[in-house]
């Protein structure tokens, strides 16, 4: 009776998942058309807003039938174990080198102390995840994130934001999100084999050594490269599977910082340990903090979902 309005409603329903449309589209059109005023040509504003809201609710719902989410959860579980190993292995070498050569200057000592604290955090995380202590690891990751954010806040204050800070900050955010959103180390260890652990330790150590001697001025950017480079073989070891691809995608997050830091002007003048405040610019700071915000949103949502599901499923460990 009113083809125009129906066609417009039909177009709005495209927002819904295909499966939902197959089941409910005709029904929903029926309800919408029954509720329409005589001679109405356009979907009402409130009905439109409500349809968008309904589509969001359905798409954001913890999917029972959706196969994509369990894979991502497994990928996050794997990342929660591998990431601390990679970062700890990577930062071990510069820390040792800086400590060994502390006679060269005080700034080196400061760097070594700060870096050692960060390294300590990651080492503790690595041990905790290997011991499958998901909750404790979660709290540690949160503490590390706060500590790193506190350190980075000084840099933002000086209008300068180093790539290393952002990479480690993002790594801590990713670790927290991975622990919160997945079943954690217990699940990861059903998937991982000894070769994964070996690769997670050997590749970053080797790369850190190479970078440290060949390319010492670019320690900052190298953190991003190392974690990214690690992503590929590790994901390959996790089979050339949908799961492996997802692990690679997650571990490739630091590559984002490479792009941001290449595209926005360099904040540093001088050597790697001599920081002269430059102007980082709001663009760089915004782009740097964006993925972190996304990660925290993921973690927050997963935490909310977990809290809701504790009474129902009782599967929380």
């Amino acid at each position, binding site marked *: 009776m009113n083809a125009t309005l129906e066609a417009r409603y039909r177009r709005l329903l495209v927002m819904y998942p295909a499966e*939902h449309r197959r*089941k*409910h589209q*005709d*029904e*929903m*059109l*029926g*309800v*919408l*058309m*029954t*509720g329409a005023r005589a001679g109405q040509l356009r979907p009402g504003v*409130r*009905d439109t807003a*409500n*349809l*968008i*809201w*309904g*589509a969001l*609710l*359905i798409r954001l*719902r913890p999917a*029972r039938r959706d196969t994509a989410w369990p894979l991502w959860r497994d990928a996050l579980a794997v990342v929660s174990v591998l990431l601390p190993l990679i970062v700890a292995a990577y930062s071990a070498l510069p820390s040792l080198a800086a400590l060994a050569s502390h006679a060269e200057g005080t700034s080196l000592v400061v760097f070594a102390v700060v870096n050692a604290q960060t390294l300590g955090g990651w080492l503790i995380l690595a041990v905790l995840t290997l011991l499958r202590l998901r909750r404790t690891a979660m709290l540690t990751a949160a503490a590390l994130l706060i500590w790193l954010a506190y350190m980075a806040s000084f840099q933002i204050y000086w209008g300068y934001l180093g790539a290393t800070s952002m990479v480690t900050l993002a790594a801590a955010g990713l670790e927290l999100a991975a622990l919160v959103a997945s079943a954690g180390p217990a699940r990861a260890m059903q998937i991982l084999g000894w070769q994964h652990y070996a690769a997670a330790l050997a590749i970053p150590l080797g790369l850190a050594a190479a970078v440290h001697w060949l390319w010492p001025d670019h320690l900052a950017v190298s953190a991003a490269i190392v974690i990214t480079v690690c992503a590929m073989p590790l994901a390959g070891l996790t089979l050339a599977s949908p799961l492996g691809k997802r692990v690679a995608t997650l571990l490739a997050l630091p590559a984002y910082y490479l792009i941001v830091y290449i595209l926005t002007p360099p904040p540093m003048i001088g050597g790697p340990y001599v920081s002269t405040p430059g102007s980082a610019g709001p663009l760089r700071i915004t782009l740097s903090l964006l993925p972190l915000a996304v990660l925290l949103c993921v973690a927050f949502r997963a935490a909310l979902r977990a809290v*809701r599901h504790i*009474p*129902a499923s009782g599967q929380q460990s």
Partner: protein
Amino acid sequence: MSQRPLQEPTFLILTALAAGAQHGYGIMTDVTDISAGRVKLRAGTLYAALDRLADEGLIEVDREEIVDTRLRRYYRLTPPGAQRLAAEVERMRAHTTVAARRLGLLGGLA
């Protein structure tokens, strides 16, 4: 009870279906009646809720009819759905009883 309280639209949808099987538009008008016009469900919210409730096994499809070339799918409460609603009524009754008693006490003292 370890179950979360039902949200108001969900509660009203289950209440609407407690009287017998209804189709989508019927549920919408019934919910408006039950809540004395305060809660107006719209299609988006309604079908997000129906889909979830069917997933959780609280409601199921009763039958389908074609009226004026339009599909009408009737939903009904399942036994677990009826239990869930009854548990919710019990929970709310416990709360409202205490609230009413305390308000009554306060009124008596003032």
